[in-house]
């Protein structure tokens, strides 16, 4: 079924593929090309190095455990948020997205400090003989932190739309609540669960910023993660090793993405075409065990408090631990001012590029059917499941001295008499930020466009409206809030991007962004600079909280609008 009444297919498809290729695929291919040049013997020597193998094992095992824990708590949290009413529910719901909004480096230093033997949680735990920071346990805790939203947000919409008649049917046939959950509800949740699990797992394997501080990065203790090893090789200018390891990571990410996509295809195969009239709510005669409900709510609250609220409080406490005067002072250094400007510069450009891409890509992905659409969708989502360090590496392998595009840039510079530098300069920082947040806007708009369908646009097109008019008058009002939310999320991630930028930016006070400045301050190690690191972090925390509040606000607006329609 080709829908070509709606205009703009060629144009939007062209723009989508061009931008995707230039900003994501060609840089990634550069890694691939370079790693293929190494030759199999050296490749295997690099990859079979003990430290590398251990780091891969560490990344995979810790991410796996974290993803499993997140899956269990994700189901509980989603269940509590959808099924139960209790005071503070919206607050709890809003907090879930904190790990998306909080810069990974900030999360990293906070968790590391919190769980160190002198930290808020680390101190009591160490008295019990449990060491968290600088162990696999700490690494896993950090990965749980960043993975929470993936599972919860995958399951929540499925539970919200869950047809109460399924539960009623099971109840009428004699099933108790336990059997109903495991035999009827869980199978319906399974595809969303696997998707959420896969995303959290993939994100965990590539995670950099939030784990490097708490992991300890000891080769002896096997607490090095793969992203750390790649970054280390980059710092030693050992590009062949870095690309070889990156290739292995890319393959793992790709397999995970493929797995997620297959799950989604399988899901639609089971559920498509089944006529559904969802009744409003389940009958009031169905059993509602009070005890279980309170245990679930309590579990959720404790989990969210320990994993999300405590770190927030810890940042504020740490940043003010040397008084307000010191706080202001540490925010007014030249380094911070420069980092602030660089961050804003990179964020604004990223936002413009990714918003444009998001609008164009979601149009082509939802308004037309074409061959290879599924592949394109997978490719657009690549930045989600790739280590940000690899994103940074990609641009080095493209524009760096060894990159294939280096001579091109050089000859342009010679011809025009300019001195454009990409890598280790502002353009590199901007490119890396764009790469990492590439799918953020489109990902928010696509589901909305899919839900509203194409009827209104077709009607407008049949009445003779042109593409831009249709978009402005018919489509835009529907996606307004989703667009704003996507832009906010994109902004938050761009402000906080660390791993990719870290690989591409080496000059403090010139190309450092705020997260890099935080990193530099924290790693300086003396107590003053650590407090300063938290002070700078607090700016990003405030932005993250604003993002969460806005998200809640926009989501609420959207709900009100839908209820009215």
């Amino acid at each position, binding site marked *: 079924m080709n829908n070509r009444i709606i205009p703009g297919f060629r144009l939007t498809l062209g723009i989508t593929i061009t931008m995707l290729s230039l900003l994501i695929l060609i840089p990634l291919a550069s890694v691939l090309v370079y790693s293929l040049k190494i030759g199999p013997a050296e490749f295997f020597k690099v990859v079979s190095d003990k430290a590398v193998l251990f780091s891969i094992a560490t990344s995979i095992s810790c991410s796996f455990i974290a993803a499993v824990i997140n899956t269990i708590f994700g189901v509980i949290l989603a269940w509590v948020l959808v099924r139960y009413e209790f005071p503070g529910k919206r607050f709890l719901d809003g907090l879930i997205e904190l790990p998306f909004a909080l810069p990974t480096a900030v999360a990293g230093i906070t968790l590391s400090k919190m769980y160190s033997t002198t930290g808020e949680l680390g101190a009591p735990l160490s008295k019990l003989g449990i060491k968290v920071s600088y162990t696999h346990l700490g690494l896993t805790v950090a990965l749980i932190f960043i993975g929470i939203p993936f599972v919860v947000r995958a399951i929540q919409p499925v539970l919200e739309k869950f047809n109460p008649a399924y539960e*009623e*049917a*099971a109840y009428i*046939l*004699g*099933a108790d609540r336990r059997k109903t959950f495991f035999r009827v509800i869980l*199978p*319906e949740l399974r595809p969303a669960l696997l998707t959420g699990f896969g995303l959290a797992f993939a994100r965990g394997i590539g995670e950099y910023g939030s784990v490097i501080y708490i992991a300890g990065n000891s080769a002896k203790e096997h607490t090095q993660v793969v992203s750390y090893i790649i970054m280390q090789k980059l710092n030693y200018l050992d590009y062949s090793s870095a690309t070889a390891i990156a290739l292995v990571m890319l393959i793992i990410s790709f397999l995970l993405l493929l797995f997620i996509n297959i799950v989604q295809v399988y899901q639609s195969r*089971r559920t498509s075409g*089944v006529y559904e009239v969802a009744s409003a709510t389940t009958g009031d005669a169905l059993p509602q065990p009070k005890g279980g409900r309170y245990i679930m709510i309590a579990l959720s609250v404790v989990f969210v408090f320990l994993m999300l609220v405590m770190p927030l409080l810890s940042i504020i406490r740490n940043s003010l631990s040397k008084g307000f005067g010191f706080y202001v002072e540490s925010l007014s250094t030249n380094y911070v001012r420069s980092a602030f400007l660089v961050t804003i510069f990179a964020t604004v450009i990223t936002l413009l590029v990714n918003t444009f891409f998001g609008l164009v890509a979601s149009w082509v992905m939802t308004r037309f059917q074409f061959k290879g659409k599924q592949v394109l969708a997978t490719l657009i989502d690549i930045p989600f499941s790739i280590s940000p360090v690899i994103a940074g590496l990609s641009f080095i392998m493209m524009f760096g001295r060894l990159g294939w595009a280096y001579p091109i840039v050089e000859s342009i510079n010679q011809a025009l008499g300019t001195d454009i530098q990409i890598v280790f300069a502002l353009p590199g920082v901007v490119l890396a930020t764009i790469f990492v947040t590439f799918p953020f806007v489109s990902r928010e708009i696509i589901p909305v466009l899919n839900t509203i369908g194409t009827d209104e646009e077709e009607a407008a097109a049949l009445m003779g409206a042109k593409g831009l008019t249709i978009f402005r008058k018919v489509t835009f009002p529907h996606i307004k809030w989703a667009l704003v939310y996507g832009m906010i999320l994109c902004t938050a991630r761009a402000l906080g991007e660390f791993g990719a930028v870290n690989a591409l930016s080496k000059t403090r006070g010139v190309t450092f962004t705020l997260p890099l400045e935080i990193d530099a301050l924290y790693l300086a190690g003396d107590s003053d600079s650590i407090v300063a690191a938290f002070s700078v972090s607090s700016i990003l925390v405030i932005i993250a909280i604003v993002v969460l509040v806005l998200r809640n606000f926009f989501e609420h607006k959207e709900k009100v609008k839908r209820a009215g329609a």
Partner: protein
Amino acid sequence: MYVELKNINKNFGDFEASKDISFGIEKGRLVALLGPSGSGKTTILRMIAGLENPTSGDIIIDGRVVNNLSPSERGIGFVFQSYALFRYMTVYQNVAFGLEIQNVPKDQIKSRVDELLALTDLKGLEDRFPNQLSGGQRQRVAFARALAPNPTLLLLDEPFAAIDAKVRQELRSWLREMIYKVGITSIFVTHDQDEAVEVADQIIVTNKGKIEQIGSPLEIYKTPQTPFVSQFIGQGTVIDDYYQLRGFEKGDYKGAIVRPEFVEAFKNDNDRFAKVVGISQKGTITDILFRGNALEVRLDVGGVQLVTHRSLERRPIKVGEVMNVIIYRVYAFDDERAYLLENEELKKKDVNNVHLESYLYSNEGYFVV
């Protein structure tokens, strides 16, 4: 009475979904709960099933008050509006679910499921998933699943809502036959009067949370007792000045309902109506609509707008043509009740010397062809 509801009330917050509902259903009956959407019919069904708790009143099944019993203890089977077939289970697993829950031995489950699949003509589809079935097949799986644990009362919520108009017709008679074959007392909810009349042997008409009338399809059609039923059943036109029609006198009524089958319109030279042409009145055709199996003819009779049906076998008519019109009867109504009014002049004339009453909805009409 096999199923009995006594003074049932049901509130959802401020909304009264059921107001003092009482009725009884005999064993073996096939009963329709008929009413417009929001009339409370589904709520009644869900309370009988044990999905909703009545706010007050008793539900009695087979002599036991079942208010505090779960659906499986009540011995009911339920077919959901959209069937709610478990999408991740095969046809076999869906039908076997209720038996597995009761820990019935595997071989017994197998023979019971096989028996039901044979009964519902689903043999060979055991391993299909619900979305690989047609709408009619899904309904049959839902039916088999509900019957598997051997319920004594079958409840069906809008069983034909999810099916195409064409297949719906077949399934109505299929379901009716199947229920009689199994011999199970059944209650189904519908908003479609044709469906209720065709399938049920007893109809309970609901409106605004109350029961309007209970009776056989013929009774509901022939003697509507309330203004609501007289308007809801059939395709009646509501008129205020019914006393403008010849043969009807003004009474203490608010208005009247005239169904198309109550209106006879014939040409001047029609021999068949020669005896009664004297008591007819003139009506002008204002519109003619082709309805497939008949013509729908709209008439202006002394300022009153009426509708009648005309067989396609009769002589052609055209808009503007003046016809002779006789109205056999109307349902007059006040605020509380509906009353059957016969055409007084026609009654006096009594062309065939038989009391008029017996003709209404019987096999013979007034005029033998």
